[in-house]
């Protein structure tokens, strides 16, 4: 499986109906990614970046074009197979951390592993290790409401990583945080990338995007390779 395609999009089109009209949200999007890359998708709101994220994250399938993730042709999969693929290959990090309010930090991190069907003991060990990695070992038994915004986002990152997915897919991960906390979260992403994790960051913020090694711009559903900026 050495020549297995890690991530490749070829001429992806996405058209969906909205209020009686067809919206052409993505136009002939092609994008290839190597394992271990750190990519930012930069675009203003309405540019189609959320649609792109949904397709990358296997929440949605393209109208036409090919999307290959870890050798699987995503456009051919049904709802059940998409869910299983998301569970294994994608680690979502949302703008507002989206933790379940009645579960402790530890249980929140365990959640994806429940759907994988991992035994409780192993689940706990892996979730603990991830929380330790994001620096929250002493906050494991706290409820989300007992954690700060930055801590909540760290729990969300731990949850995204716990299943060892191919891609960490972050959607404006610092959007709800203040500048200082946001910078810490961005630092964490850089570290995780240095640990060979593949990161795709969807954002409208040039400064956030500049954390990545590679930036693509998306405007009106079309993407173009941007210049590589480093501001470490």
């Amino acid at each position, binding site marked *: 499986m050495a020549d297995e395609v890690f991530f490749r999009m070829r001429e992806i089109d996405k058209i969906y109906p909205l209020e009686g009209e067809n919206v052409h949200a993505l136009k002939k999007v092609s994008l290839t990614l190597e394992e271990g890359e750190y990519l930012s998708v930069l675009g203003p709101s309405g540019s189609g970046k959320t649609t792109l994220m*949904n397709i990358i*994250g296997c*929440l*949605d399938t393209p109208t036409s074009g090919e999307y290959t993730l870890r050798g699987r042709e995503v456009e051919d999969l049904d*709802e*059940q197979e998409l*869910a*299983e693929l*998301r*569970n*294994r290959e994608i680690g*979502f990090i*949302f703008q*507002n951390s*989206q933790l*379940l309010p*009645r579960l402790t930090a530890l249980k929140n991190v365990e*959640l*994806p592993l*429940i*759907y*994988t*069907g*991992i*035994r*409780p003991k192993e689940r706990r060990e892996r979730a603990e290790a991830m929380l330790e990695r994001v620096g929250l070992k002493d906050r494991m038994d706290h409820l989300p409401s007992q954690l700060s915004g930055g801590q909540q986002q760290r729990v969300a990152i731990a*949850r995204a990583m716990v*299943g060892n997915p191919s891609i960490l897919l972050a959607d404006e991960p610092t959007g709800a945080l203040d500048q200082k906390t946001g910078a810490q979260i961005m630092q964490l992403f850089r570290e995780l990338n240095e640990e060979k994790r593949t990161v795709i960051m969807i954002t409208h913020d040039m400064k956030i995007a500049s954390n990545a090694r590679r930036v693509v711009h998306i405007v009106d559903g079309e993407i173009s390779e941007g210049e590589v900026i480093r501001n470490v």
Partner: protein
Amino acid sequence: MFETIRKKLIMIHESTVMALDNIRSNKVRSFLTLLGIMIGVMAVITLISTVSGVSGTISSSFSSMGVGTLTVSVTGSDLKSGVTPEDLEVITALENVDGVVPSVSLNGRVSYGSDVQSRISVSGRNAYYFFLNEDMIIQGRALNFIDDDNSSYVCVISQEIVDEFFLGVNPIGETLYVSGLPFTIVGRYEEDSGGGIASIFSGSPAVLIPYTTAMKVNNSTDINSFTVYLKAGADSSAAQEEIEDAMDVLFDFEEDCFTVSSMESIEETMNTMTTMLSSLLAGIASIALLVGGIGIMNMMLTTVTERTAEIGLKKALGAVPGQIQMQFLLESFLLSMIGGLLGVVFGLALSFGLCRLLGTGFVLNMGAVFLGVGFSAAVGIIFGWAPARKASKLNPIDALRAV
């Protein structure tokens, strides 16, 4: 194969934990919802157990009363309105018959001195009745053949009458007035009917007089009801046929003059009636279960709408539709089962109390318990199905946006 089963078990366990947690987190709403199921199951259990307790007692008192006897009630024809003492001798002479006890009831007031009682029943019996029940006389003497032959104005009275009229007085030798006629009390008897509902059905008269005297007071020569005691080991249906044939002769083969019924047949009719009654009542009570089910459906639909974002997140994290559906289905199932089990407990307690109140034996009707538990499980699954299906069908993108 083994791996998929193991994953399913893990999933069921986790879904149960989540479902219980969700039930707990909405305490008031969950309680009100399961109250509907609880009341429905409680009503079904209470009605079924109470009816079966009562009918059990009735039929056991019937069978204790009616071993080896047949009851004949006579409506008569235009020419012959009842049977006479001579006719009874014909019946008594039949092969399977040991003896006959006529029952002639008397309407009239019973009084002693200035005390008047109208609710006491007075019935005429023969000496054979006392011969059969020789243990019932606890003081004085029983009525005998001489009393029958002479139509004597004598009576034996029950313990109740003694308590009513003769507190602290020896009743033997005293005079009791029935319809204004003086009767000398010669004995006192005690009925061992066991009290409670059974005594209503045994219909024990309080004052017993010779049947010939009763006929004289009634100014009638007819006997309209008598009980036939069969010889030991006699076949009930053969005896019934024999009696019917003899009665046909007495009534000149005229139709519809009499009915001969065994206690078994009465008991059977009784059982059919109580079964019908209990299924009818249970049917009515199960309407409450239906309403409870609608309550569950309502709550589950609200829950699904409230937790749209949670469903979206779980789907994004890799929950397949079946797992989401199972979580919500388990939630309504558990909610309904908790209500059902509480209903069973309260229903059994209530019917136990009712049976004690009615003086009948309480029978733990396992059928009713299974019915209650099974019903609530079914209600939980049936009414939880649509909301759970709705949850599993949510599009994760739309669901995530509903934050």
